[in-house]
């Protein structure tokens, strides 16, 4: 037998984490953000339970400001695979008029993502939520456990995390407590793309370069996905070949100029690239350590 490759080992580890959750938790849910990491996570979950169907639902927290293409991709995939998909919108936030343009990224993310997520988790009484977060994404995520305990209020306490020697997970919890489970903890962005290529996993076309209407704002290319985003004085919409490395709310997600239209081209571009994945995520730069604060409050 040849020894398993790097990707085989990551795959087996992720499947093991998903099965561990199924064996030890009662009401798991998979947080599905439509992005590439979620797509890989969904694929691994299907592998873990094969030949059965997914014994848990998918949850998408819709901020109503994500790229339109994401919604279409989600609905097509859900239909094709026959998924049990829950789409949750924080209606109170909508009623209060929260949006990324006028409220700013911090309030919008808190109300429409973090608060919305907590509402949906409470409503479903889920005791384990799978997420596609990776430790290589951001500094505070590098400290995250695979089975991360959350309090009744979904708070994360980075200073009292359970040790996880030998990938042995302490899955005991008190009533009301829950876990965020991260099967992709040890994957890098490059691993994710290499795996998408190997397994031919479908992803949202926004990851591939195409000519898109963009404008230069806050040091990055922002795509004007619909008419809700007003132009500031001096801003001009141009058509440029761009792609996205991460996907979120369109006014808060920067694109990079690129000509990569296939997964191998993306991989080639990344290997030559000199900037990090979350550079396009404006919400990470609200203040130093801002991801850590968001995570403590319950953000993924």
């Amino acid at each position: 037998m040849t020894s398993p490759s790097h990707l085989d080992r990551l795959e087996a580890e992720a499947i093991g984490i998903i099965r561990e959750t199924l064996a030890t938790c009662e009401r798991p849910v998979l947080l599905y953000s439509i992005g590439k990491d979620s797509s890989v996570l969904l694929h691994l979950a299907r592998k873990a339970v094969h030949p059965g169907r997914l014994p848990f639902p998918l949850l998408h927290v819709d901020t109503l400001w994500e790229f339109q293409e994401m919604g279409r991709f989600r609905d097509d995939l859900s239909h094709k695979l026959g998924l049990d998909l829950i789409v949750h919108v924080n209606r109170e936030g909508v009623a209060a008029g929260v949006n990324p343009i006028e409220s700013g990224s911090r309030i919008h993310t808190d109300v429409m993502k973090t608060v919305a997520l907590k509402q949906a988790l409470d409503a479903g009484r889920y005791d384990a939520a799978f997420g596609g977060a990776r430790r290589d994404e951001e500094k505070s995520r590098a400290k995250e456990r695979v089975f991360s305990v959350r309090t009744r209020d979904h708070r994360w306490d980075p200073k009292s995390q359970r040790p996880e020697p030998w990938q042995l997970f302490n899955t005991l919890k008190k009533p009301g407590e829950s876990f965020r489970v991260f099967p992709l903890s040890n994957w890098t962005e490059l691993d994710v793309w290499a795996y998408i290529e190997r397994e031919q996993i479908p992803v949202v076309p926004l990851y591939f370069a195409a000519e898109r209407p963009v404008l230069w704002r806050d040091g990055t290319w922002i795509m004007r996905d619909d008419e809700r985003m007003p132009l500031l004085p001096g801003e001009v919409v141009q058509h440029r070949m761009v792609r996205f490395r991460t996907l979120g709310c369109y006014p808060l997600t920067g694109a990079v100029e690129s000509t990569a239209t296939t997964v191998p081209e993306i991989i080639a571009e990344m290997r030559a690239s000199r900037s990090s994945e979350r550079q396009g995520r404006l919400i990470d730069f609200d203040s130093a350590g801002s991801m850590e604060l968001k995570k403590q409050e319950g953000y993924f």
Partner: protein
Amino acid sequence: MGALAAETAAPLPAAANDAALAGRSLLRFITCGSVDDGKSTLLGRLLYEAGAIPDDVIASLEADSARIGRADRGIDYSLLLDGLQSEREQGITIDVAYRYFATQRRAFIVADTPGHEQYTRNMATGASTADLAIILIDAGKGVLPQTRRHALIAAFVGVRHLVVAINKIDLVGCDELRIRSLEAAFRTAIAGLAFDSITVIPLSARDGDNVASLSARTPWYDGPTLLGWLEVVGADTVSPTRGLVMPVQWVNRPDATFRGFSGTIAAGTVAPGDAVEILPSRRSARVTRIVTFDGDLPRAGAGTAVSLVLDREIDVSRGDVIVAPGKAEGSPLVRTSIEAKMLVTGQAALVPGATYLLRLGTASANATVETVVHGIDIATYAQRDRASVATNELAVLRLRLDRPLAVAPYATLPALGGFILVDKVTHETAAMGTVIAETTDSSRPRLHVVGRSLEQAMVRTYGGDWRRTLVPATTWRLGSALLLGVVVGVLTGHPGYAAAAAAADALARPLLRHLHRSLWGRWSRRRDPSVENGGGI
């Protein structure tokens, strides 16, 4: 320059070819060091040299270096690693941070672990899955008590390769003699710990000497660079051929037509048609299918996540272990009592009588601490008598389980030898442990058995803390024998009689005493509980 660098040093092959990403091997390693000896700086430097730090991160690093006020020292690579706000402000690492980078040859997962004694458990966690540990020594400070502690913890969790990075070599003028003497001091300090390789590399994390390219400041050094060594060190050594071991993680039963036992193969291989045994029940069955999403497999080996279908309806549940039949060398054993080396990770001390939830492989059981066999001083490695074991302390304990589990010595099969204890009330992870080989095992060296019996005899005669009792007892015995010799010498005027009388007194009295005790012991000795149990581990 022979001794410095690896005993097993291999020449670095020329330019690596651009192997496909998927085919690269994986090395997991940890870095450990003390406060201020440059651990995070070294790791930051490694990432930088491997081209793993994007430009925008370097930009934010420059901003952070200036903000935290270390701008005079240029870019502070340590800020790359310390992820939590409190760590960045205090300039220390508290929790394990995982980092990922790759070169043309290898993908690396690095656990950057805290050096301070208070966070020993975090270091042990990071080390538990590592193939290699880098231990930093500050050339200006030399080998510290922490250095010994880090090496001991690495050995405890079974790290196979050790790299000793002698950092800040400019502080000793890159002097060969001084660096060699540091190496010698290190080797003496960790004598007794077993590693497959120990590689000593003199370097400067701040300036980059011998990190990715050999330094002109150490022309006498002929070993590999740190990065060069990490790329070639044998992490993926082939495990010995052995029978199948697969802990059942989850019973996959989507409907009445399918019942598969899912898990990751820990050792050996399996193929359809193979006879297997279920532990601990020892029921037999045959494998009919190896089911995966990508189709049934004709054969599967260690590290593969599969679902096995068996030919008959037998009771198999999570925590059971599917193994090749027979009791081959190294196959798991079914036990209700284990002896283990344990590190206390919780806030509360482990005390005899306390019961915890034990997680080993995929199994759970209630485990009660029977005895603390002995503590291990993490700075001196000396055995200590302990009534209980406190946070961050290491000890050998005996545990009694409330049901039989399939276990194996950690050194033989880590998947069934590593475990955690969970506090049943607070849910805190109280301890992590490694099962140690059965002391009654006949395959152990005879000398050890003799040593063990002697130890037990001493304990029976002088009690559990016989070492402490023995010193006054011995000096008393020798003193009284000498006195008798002197008296006989004075009375007879013959040195020969004097010596004979002293020797007879020194030897005969303990022998008679022991004989007397053992005769009484036959009447009253309680049977050893572990014997009744069929032998513990």
